[in-house]
């Protein structure tokens, strides 16, 4: 039997080594560091989305589409209004058409001339062209907004994954740092015991040879945490090297079941941005079909104009039947009817629009089917991750009980060292598994929110601490 007091000293050292820096150490560290910005999950998502140029591009696209709507709906933006002005020099002309001292070829006695005209043409009745055009433009705005939402949702998912990734990385680093510290203590004590022949040399070799595995875990955790943290920092548009903290959110309780699939698919059909975009495009094409129908009818326009011209060294002609292009004042108003009577071409254009609309509607249905499958897959993934997390937590509870019992027995001198070390290994492994499972569940929930087109609900789930349909 191995001397129990020696085994106990080694393993109790392992237990006692599981400490974290005291409050004093942490305060001293904080005093040296500049103030760090701190972000919660919602702030991370908002900042990542706002700072991204792709989202800005989509916003500008929407604004540009809105201008078309404003033009078609705005009374003052609709008329064609033109102003024309001309000025220069012209030879003098005196008298009138029957008696003049000048000839048409005279080039002497030059004098100024100037004129201007203002013309307005306004559609009086278009047989629905304007209304359907405005409706089509509004639907294009809706489609552009939905495309922007899709870009925002994709970015939000990336931000959410990075957020949970950084938090998981921090937990891994803490866990493996603790494990490393404990193992260092164990090695020191093992070396001391070898010198006093209290433990076998082979036992010490075994302990030291496993040092690489323990250190490798920590090094990988530190590297991964650093990479993910830097990536999120770039997402957040922070200065290079700027440090920041994340306010930790809890993993929510999932209250979804497979019976919620239908409701989730219904939500996706109304909220998924790509579905919304295609619906809007279909509606816009419906409107363009109506425009083609309207094109079978004429357009009635009303127009008006005002013109004024003066040339001081040319005599004004009072006879209204004489056309004098240098001295006049004119006002006119008129109705205009324009009618394209090529009905065959109208029918072809209508069919072109209809086929385009039907093809787009078919694509929308195909997308809806694909999304229904994706919603199902995402829900299954959430439910699986939920079960895995529950199982990991339960197993970790068991490993904690095992560790406590083994440590208690050992502390009382009635337990062995090997079971205690095995219990430690199991407990560390399961703590790491719980961290990974929490990350996987949070990302699976974000993926579900993405596929139903409702990333806002994800933030609500996290804030509320539970995932449930209203």
């Amino acid at each position, binding site marked *: 039997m191995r001397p129990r*007091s020696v085994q106990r000293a080694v393993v109790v050292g392992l237990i006692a080594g599981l400490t*974290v820096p005291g409050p004093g150490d942490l305060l001293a560290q904080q005093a040296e560091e500049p103030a760090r910005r701190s972000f919660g999950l919602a702030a991370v998502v908002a900042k990542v989305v706002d700072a991204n140029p792709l989202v800005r591009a989509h916003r500008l696209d929407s604004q540009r589409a809105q201008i078309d709507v404003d033009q078609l709906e705005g009374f003052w933006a609709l008329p064609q209004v033109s102003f024309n002005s001309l000025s220069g020099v012209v030879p003098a002309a005196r008298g009138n058409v029957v008696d003049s001292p000048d000839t048409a070829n005279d080039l002497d006695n030059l004098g100024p001339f100037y004129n201007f005209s203002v013309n307005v043409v306004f559609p009086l009745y278009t047989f629905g062209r304007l209304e359907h055009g405005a409706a089509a433009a509004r639907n294009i705005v809706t489609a552009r907004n939905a495309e922007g939402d899709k870009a925002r949702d994709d970015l939000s998912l990336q931000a959410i994954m990075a957020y949970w990734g950084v938090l998981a990385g921090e937990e891994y680093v803490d866990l493996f740092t603790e494990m490393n510290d404990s193992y260092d203590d164990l090695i020191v004590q093992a070396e001391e015991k070898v010198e006093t022949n209290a433990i076998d040399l082979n036992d010490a070799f075994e302990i030291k040879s496993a040092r690489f595995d323990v250190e490798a875990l920590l090094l990988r955790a530190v590297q991964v945490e650093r990479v993910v943290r830097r990536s999120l920092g770039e997402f957040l548009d922070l200065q290079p090297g700027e440090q920041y903290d994340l306010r930790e959110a809890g993993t929510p309780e999932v209250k979804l079941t497979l019976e919620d699939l239908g409701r989730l698919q219904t939500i996706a059909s109304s909220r998924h941005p790509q579905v919304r975009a295609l619906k809007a495009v279909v509606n816009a094409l419906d409107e363009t079909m109506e425009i083609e129908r309207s094109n079978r009818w004429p357009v009635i326009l009303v127009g008006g104009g005002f013109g004024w011209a003066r040339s001081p060294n040319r005599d004004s002609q009072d006879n209204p039947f004489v056309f004098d292009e240098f001295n006049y004042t004119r006002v006119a108003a008129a109705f205009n009817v324009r009618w394209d009577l090529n009905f065959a071409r109208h029918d072809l254009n209508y069919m072109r629009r209809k086929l385009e609309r039907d093809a787009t509607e078919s694509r929308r249905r195909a997308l809806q089917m694909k999304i229904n499958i994706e919603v199902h897959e995402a829900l299954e993934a959430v439910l699986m991750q939920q079960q895995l997390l529950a199982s990991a937590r339960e197993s970790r509870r068991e490993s904690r009980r095992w560790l406590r019992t083994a440590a208690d*027995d050992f502390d*009382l*001198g009635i337990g062995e060292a090997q079971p205690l070390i095995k219990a430690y290994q199991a407990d560390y492994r399961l703590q790491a598994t719980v961290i990974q499972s929490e990350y996987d569940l949070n990302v699976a929930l974000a993926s579900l929110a993405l596929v139903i087109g409702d990333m806002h609900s994800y933030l609500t789930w996290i804030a509320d601490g539970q995932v449930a349909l209203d």
Partner: protein
Amino acid sequence: MARLRSISLGALVFSMTAVAAGQGAETRTPMEIVRESNEAITAILGEYDPLGSEGEALVYEVMDGVTDFQEMSAATINDLCGENEIPGEKCGEWKKVFGDLLRIRSIKGVGRYRADSFDYLNEEIAGERAVVNTLAHYEDEEVTIDYELASRGDGWVIVNYVIDDVDTSYSYNRRFGRLLDDDTVDDVIQLLLDRIEDFRAE
């Protein structure tokens, strides 16, 4: 200031032990006993860091006033003596040594296993027995600790703990059972005596 704290701490420990000895004005409930003993030990740990012999003496006073280590030992060992046909005198020696070990370990391990804070959730009294359910908060986890108490005259004493759903007395019982498969009861008693010596040497 340190002197004032020592006086107030001494008064707290004195009041705990005095009341536990039946000199208090009125009988305390099981939950009050658990809560006050935990608060007293937390105060001692806050005052004495490291604990030292003076601090240990104060913890002993509190522990002895509210815990029956011999009862805890007897609950662990009694049926093993019957199953393994251990003579009464030897069984009594075993229980005495294990009770002493539980007592000294409760002092030596008090700092290491101490929770940061406790929530006192519930108290159930059934005749001469009572259970106080608590939730112990450690740095990054919470653990349920149920204290089992027995009535002694006009007060209550702790006779067992169920930590994270693991019955401490039952766990020791199973461990001793396995030890007796390979070792004699004298070997087991010697293990416990060795450990007591180790604790005294710490």
